[in-house]
């Protein structure tokens, strides 16, 4: 009996506490889903808009209080996808290049110097990237292309590209470095040059890892709020090209949420956008897991 009591103090108490905290993480995750789902559902359940009019219409004019407006969010959805895709197009080739340098061309410099530099890139806060975009990039874009303002898809894409570059690079470099040395040696023994080895062996081994990095970068680009909000121009119309302003899901939420009344159609429409953003990030998480599983299988 006494030993049971002793064990209560030396084992069971601690085990219970850590288990409770461990399980609380599940509860927290579910709570986020539930709360945002509940708030986001009001647009459709309380205000009676159809899902199609939310997703595919571009008429965004939600009412502030009591009245009925329109909640078409196509502009924001398309805008988010546009800037994220542009950022990826710009960042991915550069990331891959630097990842190859880190893993195979100059591993010592990579480990000692390039990796720390990339960590510093990651550490720079997103508002600072936004600040840079606003003070340097936006005026520059305006001057180069003779625009009245430089707020544009291009500016947002460039800012995001710099932000996701370190993510893709470090994940891709990890993947390339995981290439089994025997395979590399075998390739060299067959007379490959270094580039032939990289192209035919390392890039092939690292394929899934590089893909994971790209999806991670895309996820970050879609979810980034402040930096994009500062340079996208926030005009509620589709972009006519790279140089025209538009709006994104994150930008409209950040800039409007504070100016709306709780429970109004406007406010609920913003919560629906937030829930949509949550769903988009969940899709990315599932995709990354799927890619990871494929890698384990092969």
């Amino acid at each position: 009996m006494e030993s049971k009591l002793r064990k209560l103090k030396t084992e069971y108490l601690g085990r219970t506490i850590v288990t409770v905290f461990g399980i609380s993480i599940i509860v927290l995750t579910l709570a986020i889903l539930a709360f945002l789902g509940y708030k986001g559902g009001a647009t459709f359940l309380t205000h009676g808009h159809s899902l199609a009019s939310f997703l595919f219409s571009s008429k965004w004019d939600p009412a502030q209080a009591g009245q009925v407006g329109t909640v078409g969010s196509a502009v924001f959805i398309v805008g988010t996808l546009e800037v994220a895709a542009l950022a990826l197009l710009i960042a991915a080739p550069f990331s891959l290049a630097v990842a190859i340098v880190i893993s195979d061309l100059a591993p010592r410099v990579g480990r000692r110097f390039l990796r720390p530099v990339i960590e510093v890139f990651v550490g720079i806060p997103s508002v600072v990237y936004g600040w840079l975009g606003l003070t340097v990039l936006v005026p520059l874009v305006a001057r180069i292309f003779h625009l009245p303002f430089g707020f544009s898809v291009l500016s947002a894409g460039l800012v995001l590209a710099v932000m996701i570059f370190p993510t893709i690079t470090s994940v891709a470099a990890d993947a390339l470095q995981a290439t089994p040395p025997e395979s590399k040696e075998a390739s060299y023994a067959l007379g490959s040059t270094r580039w032939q080895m990289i192209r035919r062996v390392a890039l092939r081994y690292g394929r899934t890892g590089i893909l994971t990095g790209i999806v991670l970068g895309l996820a970050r680009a879609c979810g980034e709020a402040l930096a994009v909000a500062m340079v996208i121009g926030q005009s509620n119309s589709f972009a006519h090209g790279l140089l025209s302003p538009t709006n994104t899901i994150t930008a409209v939420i950040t800039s409007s949420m504070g100016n709306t009344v709780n429970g109004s159609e406007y406010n609920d429409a913003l919560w629906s956008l937030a829930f949509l953003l949550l769903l988009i990030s969940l899709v990315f998480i599932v995709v990354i897991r799927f890619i990871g599983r494929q890698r384990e299988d092969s």
Partner: protein
Amino acid sequence: MTLLLLRAAHSATRQSSKSGSSNAGMAHIRRAKLADKTITVILSTIAALFVVLLALITVYLLYKGARAATPDLLSFTGFGVGIQLFNTVYLVFLSLLVTVPIGICAGIFLAEYAGKGPIIAVVRTCIETLSSLPSIIVGLFGFLVLIQLTHSKWNLLAGALALAILNVPLIARTTEDALRSVDRSYYDGSIGLGATRWQTTVRILLRASVPRIITGIILAAGRGFGEAAVLIYTAGMNSAVNFNNWDPTSITSPLNILRPADTLAVHIWALKTEGIMANANQIADLSAAVLVVLVLVFSLSARWLGNRFDKKMSGGK
């Protein structure tokens, strides 16, 4: 210039390959070597460009910050960024008070008690999900639960708790990795001496993991300093503080955790989007420089500490 030379050499090899079939093999090799060199030059140049880009960004930030700096703006009065600096450090500190115990407990659970069943898979998935959620989502959740449901105004505590949601996964994962990487013999030895699993975990494994966990905490702090999207709708975008009032229950006291508080990052956002002061740009420049210095100091010291601990662990080589 080098590229031009390379291209010339390339066409030369091509021509020589046409001259005879016995030469074809040689030409093939020459071409492969040339491609190898060209690619090496191109890729290394790109890598160098990014280093230059980072250097430019840092220098530009510091230059703009230094140019904007005046004693007035650096002060702890209503004009200066001292208040925001204090808020940033205070908020992150409060947040870590919550993050660290929860994160370490969750990490211990994952490494020692979760087993291999479905529970660990679910907790892992949740941690992964939490850590890859956009921070604006976490901020909105905090706004909903900590501000709207409790009918309170924007406050420091809500900001700290929302930030904790973002950092708990980081600490949990660091702790789990650190515990798992402790040599198995430590565990066996402790159990062999009659300690329980909990005693072993806390007194032996956790102690051996302290350096790596500290590195993780510093990283979490660095991330907290720069976070803004989480805080805009939880901690608020302004603060009215009197630095002569140190009574924690007073609403103008810097120590009060239920007052609204804008951190440096949020301050930059507010100034750049709705700043109405004449020198809003100047203050934003200074805030950005101060923030980046703060973040860099933390991330570099985390790196330095990490390296030092690694060396110590591997026998001081």
